[in-house]
């Protein structure tokens, strides 16, 4: 020991996607990247996951769409997005100017639509991975959420995997009885990684008007309040799959991210925290680095899954 220690190696990979560090920005919280460019050096991020894309542009839900809750917030934005065509023509070229992998989050109302969206993005060039949002209702099966049924989740996964050479990440919904079961099903169907958790279903009421705060009545809960749930589910899934697990949910500082990494996540996503601190992702990267230096660890990989139970 003694002498200068080299900067720790923060590199991780998900399938063929190589990231300079394990910190990604979560879908739906970072727009298409350019919104935060004045505040954050995008080149320093591990990856950017863009807003969920569907085949056609989607209008989204009527307002009010958001409401703050204790240590968190509910959102019912309604998957508003510009659609694949506009994304590829207008948003993707701007993102290519940065040296950061772009992950395209995708969804559909039918299995077939997922496949179509995945294929279109794969052939566009400039996309490093696909993240499948299975928290959407299957309109052909009476609106049952894809991610709540292992067979439906597997079918979506295998359809998308078949249509692309890109690594495919499946973003799991926590609104299920056994998230590890869904994780195993999508792993068997060819997913290269899973990311969890998406938002928790929640509600808030205005007692003066006696109406729900959200026009959509129910929404997705995110923010620090959900961290314990997300962390627990990450640990449950890590024990049951071999593919990389990306941890998401309530991470606002480096110590939060480290909890997920120690629990076995190979990477993390920062979402709501960006609203609180536009530089949250950068602060987390720097904090992880400082932690590794302080603990004399040369590589991030040495602490991933180092939880002692």
């Amino acid at each position, binding site marked *: 020991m003694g002498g200068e220690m080299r900067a720790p190696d923060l590199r991780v990979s998900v399938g063929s996607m190589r990231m300079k560090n394990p910190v990604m920005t979560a879908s*739906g*919280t*970072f*727009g298409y990247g350019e*919104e*935060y460019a004045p*505040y954050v050096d995008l080149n320093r991020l591990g990856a950017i996951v863009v*807003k969920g894309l569907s085949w056609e542009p989607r*209008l*989204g839900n*009527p*307002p*009010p*769409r*958001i*409401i*703050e809750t*204790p*240590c*968190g*917030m509910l*959102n019912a*934005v309604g998957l*508003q997005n510009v659609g694949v065509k506009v994304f590829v023509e207008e948003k993707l070229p701007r993102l290519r100017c940065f040296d950061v992998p772009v992950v395209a989050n995708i969804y559909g109302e039918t299995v077939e639509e997922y496949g179509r969206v995945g294929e279109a993005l794969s052939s566009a060039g400039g996309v490093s991975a696909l993240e499948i949002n299975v928290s959407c209702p299957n309109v052909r099966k009476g609106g049952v959420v894809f991610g709540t049924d292992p067979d439906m989740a597997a079918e979506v996964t295998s359809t998308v995997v078949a249509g692309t050479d890109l690594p495919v990440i499946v973003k799991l919904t926590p609104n299920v009885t056994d998230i590890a079961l869904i994780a195993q099903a999508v792993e068997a169907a060819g997913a290269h990684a899973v990311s969890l958790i998406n938002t928790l279903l929640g509600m808030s009421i205005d007692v003066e008007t006696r109406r729900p705060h959200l026009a959509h009545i129910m929404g997705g809960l995110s*923010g*620090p309040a959900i961290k314990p749930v997300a962390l627990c589910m990450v640990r449950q899934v890590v024990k049951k799959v071999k593919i990389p697990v990306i941890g998401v949910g309530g991470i*606002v500082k480096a110590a939060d991210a480290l909890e997920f990494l120690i629990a076995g996540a190979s990477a993390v996503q920062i979402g*709501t925290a*960006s*609203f*609180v601190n*536009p530089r949250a992702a950068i602060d987390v990267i720097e904090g992880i680095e400082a932690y590794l230096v302080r603990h004399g660890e040369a590589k991030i990989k040495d602490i991933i899954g180092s939880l002692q139970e």
Partner: protein
Amino acid sequence: MEGKISFQSEVAPGHFLLSVDVAGEIDPPLPGQFAMLRPFPTLDPLLARPLSIYGYRRSEGAVRLEFLYRVVGKGTRLLSALIPGDKVGVMGPLGKGFRVPEKVERIVIIAGGMGVAPLTYLAEYCRTRDERIPLMVYLGARTSGLIVGEDRLRNLVGYCRIMTEDGSCGDGGLVTDGVKCDLSVIDGPDTYYFACGPAPMLKELSVLLGAVGSRCQVSLEERMACGVGACLGCAVLIRRYGKECYTSVCKEGPVFALREVVWEAK
């Protein structure tokens, strides 16, 4: 950006005038722009609060932003408890402000309740740009206790008409009644209207000023999370180029042409 409270006082029950000094350079805010303020280093309340910019001053190398606001909940209550010297997180100036055209014959400002804040900054901006342009203000609230910021506004304009719903000061009625009364006299091809206030007031204006077309701009408000157009939480329905789209109040607004705003049945 980090800011420091330089002044805060309760100017009317529940209404506060706040000034925040920020170190470093920021562009002079345009009237109608806002800032996201975070008075708390905690995670609860989680989100910054958007407040319209009421004033902008430069002194001794520091930039001073002024806000006039009403306590409506957890976040504003905490903000109102801050004293000079306290730190506050400031993000801004944000959004697209009011656009005052080159060729203007008369400017009519219509303020409902706390709409007075951005519109006062607009009046100051117009006065500085051209001392001679007639500036008229219609300022309304439910009752006299809720009329705030009248003095600063009166000093900037040539004509000020106060309306209160209960008649406790000024004329009795809605602020839109005051405008309706004078409309035939004040309107003209180069008369421009700028409005800010509660949604029912703006809805009423969209009917009253339907014929003035693009000569009326309104500042909207909606709950916000990110403030920069990334989360789409604050989107309102806007009609542009024949299409209706949910558009971020924080980034594409808060100012829109009145005729672009689609008033849905709530």
